[in-house]
């Protein structure tokens, strides 16, 4: 009789850490806090390994643990430090050389400004590669809710990026671009 965790659990968890860190950064915004979230997720996953159904998607299971942890424990703290998100992002996120620095930061800033539930849905669908059904299960909501959140996130980002595009055009054409947006 063995009380050990399923053989290979440690290796499976190790293999998922890169994805967990990316999702955590999406949720928490700041790398230090994101890695604390990863750590809490790993500890909970280890302690609750019995609740994982073998043959199902381990990443989805881990993401569920992570987002539940984030929304129950981290979300309030995130608001308190939101004013330094941009600076932290520029410091802590790996920056591919070929990428425009400003472009990247602008997008990160806009992503971080999305409501947390919309950002979560957008990342799960647009970056993590989950289906709408899987994302709905991870978030514990209906598929239609995920679709709605993703659409609202895209809409908001499009509007913000369009404004930036117009600002750039105005800045080029006129020395005093309007700042009348609320």
């Amino acid at each position, binding site marked *: 009789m063995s009380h050990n965790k399923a053989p290979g659990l440690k290796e499976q968890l190790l293999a998922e850490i890169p994805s967990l860190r990316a999702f955590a950064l999406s949720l928490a915004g700041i790398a230090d806090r994101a890695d604390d979230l990863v750590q809490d997720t790993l500890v909970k996953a280890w302690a609750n390994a019995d609740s994982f159904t073998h043959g199902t998607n381990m990443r989805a299971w881990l993401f569920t643990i992570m987002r539940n942890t984030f929304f129950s424990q981290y979300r309030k703290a995130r608001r308190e430090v939101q004013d330094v998100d941009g600076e932290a992002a520029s410091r802590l996120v790996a920056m591919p050389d070929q990428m425009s620095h400003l472009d990247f930061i602008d997008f*990160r800033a806009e992503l971080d400004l999305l409501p947390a539930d919309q950002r979560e849905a957008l990342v799960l669908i647009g970056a993590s590669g989950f289906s709408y059904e899987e994302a709905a299960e991870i978030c514990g909501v209906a598929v239609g809710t995920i679709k709605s959140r993703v659409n609202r996130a895209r809409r908001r980002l499009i509007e913000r990026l369009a404004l930036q595009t117009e600002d750039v055009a105005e800045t080029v054409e006129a020395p005093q671009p309007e700042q009348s947006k609320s």
Partner: protein
Amino acid sequence: MAMTDDSKDNSEKSSADIGLEPLLQAHIGRKLREFYDSAVREPVPDRFKLLLDQLENDELESVGDKAEGKAEQA
């Protein structure tokens, strides 16, 4: 329109819809994946490997033979 899975939100037309939207939609998708993939590609910090080692050690110790657990780690 680049949106295929939703028709309700399309009622909220804005200047962004005029010509720019497909480009911005693609831009957003690309930026999102760049952000996410760059995070995925970061090397895993040692703290997580150490954490999993610790969790494994604690468990081995809790189920019985401490010495054997440590020996397996060595």
